[in-house]
């Protein structure tokens, strides 16, 4: 196992979640914005209305400064955060989908080349070629979404990959198409929000009203389509995921869906009331508020997507604590739980004291500390006042009176549909129980 990185009170998982949520706004804007931009630019040329180009220039600059700073860096940020929080998780994805990411990278390069050329050559190259540059960016950006969605969907539903180990069998899985369509609809909605905000800063009042209304139509269309595709997506969720959510095994999943749906409703209302009915109401303040609502809704949606994957980080293959869950014969992968149960978990740790004497209580606690950090710390805060699934509080609910009580709980851990089984031999279990009991007494 790799060294463990602990984020006190919040867990390293929350760091990934925050960066991922932060990434979604700029990356969906980057993928969706240019379909609207090209639409406006085409209209400007077709109707001979150069005043519309002010919007094109402003909107492109926003994409450059926001998407290609925050978007690209937070994208790299997810990788870095995943590396330090769940190195075996990101490694598992990369070793199966490196060519997918590398292919996406080709489109990133096309995106960055085409958007800079688009922005800096407006009015400097002929109209047809400039429009083509816009189309080029729009396609490259959307294709990058087509690719990354396959990898994200694979984490939730690994499809036939567990049998064949084939790239495309995992990529085009049960949730791929509905997720792609949902994200596509959603990108149009985000593009609409930003477009309306940028349009509200235009000088010409007639153009301002017209473009805010157009952005509203795009946004409403995206949101209505999004509802249909999201329903398809939820319908296609793996049975296990549906049970966690609909059977209220994990009640917080239901709350997250409600928050997400509420945010969706608020944004839809904003599009209808502010953009379509009273464009004058669209401005920086209402824009910032609606962006905050979007951010909360995205955070809840992402939290839901992460939550229904439990206990896996990669469906059926890798548990949240980075232990391999099952054999994948096509890839010569062996499940690790039986190995750890037989040989002991501690034996497989490199970053541990050289000698651990099980008869020495201090050594036992030290061993327990290591095991608990590695097997629980990815998802649970280990501090008394931890904010994310704090283990001291969760264990206190069981009112353990001795380490043996906790040992019993560890033995039955795999019976919970959202928890990975404890991986280790009797000594590991005893050490972990002693340590866990001690943190309930802090």
């Amino acid at each position, binding site marked *: 196992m790799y060294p463990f990185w602990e984020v006190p009170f919040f867990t390293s998982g929350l760091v990934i979640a925050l960066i991922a949520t932060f990434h979604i706004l700029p990356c969906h804007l980057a993928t969706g914005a240019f379909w609207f931009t090209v639409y406006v630019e085409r209209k400007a040329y077709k109707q001979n209305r150069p005043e519309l180009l002010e919007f094109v220039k402003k909107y492109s600059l926003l994409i450059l400064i926001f998407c290609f700073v925050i978007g690209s860096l937070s994208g790299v940020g997810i990788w870095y955060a995943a590396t330090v929080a769940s190195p075996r998780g990101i490694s598992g994805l990369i070793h199966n989908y*490196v060519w997918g990411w590398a*292919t996406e990278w*080709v489109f990133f390069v096309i995106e960055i080349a085409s958007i800079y050329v688009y922005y800096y050559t407006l009015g400097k*190259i002929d109209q047809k070629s400039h429009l083509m540059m816009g189309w080029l960016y729009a396609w490259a950006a959307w294709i990058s979404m087509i690719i990354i969605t396959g990898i994200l969907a694979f984490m939730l539903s690994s499809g036939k990959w567990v049998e064949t180990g084939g*790239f495309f069998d995992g990529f085009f899985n049960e949730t791929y198409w509905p997720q792609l369509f949902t994200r596509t609809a959603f990108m149009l909605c985000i593009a609409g929000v930003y477009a309306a905000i940028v349009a509200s800063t235009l000088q010409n009042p007639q153009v301002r009203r017209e473009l805010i209304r157009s952005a509203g139509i795009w946004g409403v269309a995206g949101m209505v389509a999004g509802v249909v595709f999201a329903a398809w997506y939820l319908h296609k969720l793996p049975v296990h995921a549906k049970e966690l959510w609909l059977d209220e095994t994990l009640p917080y999943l239901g709350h997250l869906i409600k928050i997400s749906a509420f945010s969706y409703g608020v944004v839809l209302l904003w599009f209808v009331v502010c953009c379509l009915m009273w464009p004058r109401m669209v401005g920086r303040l209402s824009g910032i508020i609606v962006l905050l609502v979007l951010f909360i809704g995205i955070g809840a949606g992402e939290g839901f997507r992460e939550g229904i994957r439990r206990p896996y980080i990669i469906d059926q293959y890798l548990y949240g604590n980075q232990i391999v869950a099952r054999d*994948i014969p096509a890839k010569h992968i062996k499940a690790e739980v039986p190995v750890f149960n037989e040989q002991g978990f501690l034996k497989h740790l490199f970053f541990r004291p050289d000698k*651990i004497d099980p008869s020495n209580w201090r050594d036992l606690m030290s061993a327990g500390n290591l095991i608990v950090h590695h097997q629980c710390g990815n998802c649970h805060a280990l501090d008394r006042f931890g904010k994310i699934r704090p283990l001291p509080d969760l264990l206190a609910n069981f009112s353990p009176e001795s380490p043996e009580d906790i040992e019993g709980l560890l033995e039955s851990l795999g019976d919970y549909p959202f928890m990975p089984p404890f991986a280790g031999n009797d000594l590991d279990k005893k050490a972990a129980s002693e340590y866990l009991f001690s943190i309930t007494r802090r």
Partner: protein
Amino acid sequence: MDIATYVNSMRDPAGLPFYPIIFQFLLVLTFAMHITMVNLVVGSTFVAIWEVWKKNEHGLRLAKALGRVLTVGMSIAIVLGVAPLLFVQVIYDPFWYTATTLSAFWALMFLVVITLAFYAGYGFYLGNRNADIDSAKTVWALVAGGLLLVTALLIHMLSMEQLMPQHWKDWIVSANGSVSYAGGEFHGIAFGRLLHFLLPSFAVTGVFLMLYSAYFKDREDYDKAYVNYVGQKGAWMALWASVLAIGAGFWWLGLIPSDFHFVRNPLFLLGAAMGVATTAFIGSSIFKPQERAIPAALLMFGTIFVMCCAREALRMKHMSQAGYSIYNYPVNADWPSTILFFATFIMGLFVLYFPAVAAFQAGRAKAGQVVTLDPCIGRKAVSAMIGWFVIVAGLGIIVSIKNGVLF
């Protein structure tokens, strides 16, 4: 457990989806592209500051141009950096993940610092667009430059820690048996190596200025004196920076364990020879920077590429000390996805011709002139993208139906 057992057992259980040497080649190639762009960004930032401080018209004009280079270049550098970041995780995963987790805090700080550097760069560029000699400000460029140096230090540290597996355990497991989970390790700074990466920034920027001068020399609305000023400045800067980079290279060489006998490594010798040849060529181009700009740029990139190969050889030497070789990494070759990448890569080169031609021709035209491009170029580029989509979507529908996952 010894270090060799650890690093070999931490290889990903899925193995590699293709042969390691291909990933290694792509790693070196894309890193060379990335570091060249990073060098241009760092060099442009400091040259822009210097040019504003000189308080003359040519200097200010160049500083404004470099402000744009700084922001555009940083975007490109980040995108290009994604590829080596990906490939290093594929073949050197035990080293990358261990070192980065040990220094998790600093790895995440890197992101914060580079984001601030980016916005500071925009602050300089946008803030000085309409500035004159008296009102031009360097404060944001100074902030950007300082932050870029911090990011260089952080990335250097993360790279160095990967080469020190024999020390990893001592860093976080203390004598009393406690283990640190803080992720705050910061080790391995070697200033010789760091300088060998930073000093070429001025050489690369110098060659870029030679190219800039060559590119704009025929533009009617560009003052010839300004274009010559930039070319001369670039050639001199490239010369002196190359000489200093060679010096830093020898400093770095002195820091490498002598039992590696790296001084006899053929890639190092080739890199050193190319470095000297490039310096000599630039030295001979001082009075004709415009004519010599393209060969100088090709030589410079060639040298950077070979030096990156030498750096890779050095990394392999370090890692062999820990009993690790990428060449015996288990392979589960996945041909369909490999073909997908290489076919897309070739298509990407074809598509990029369109923005390249558009940028080149638009930049050559004088202000106010609208360039008309051959409509076929753009149409073919967009058609290639749509073609890619149709093929992959078709494949996806077939696979989904075959696997019974579509509806």
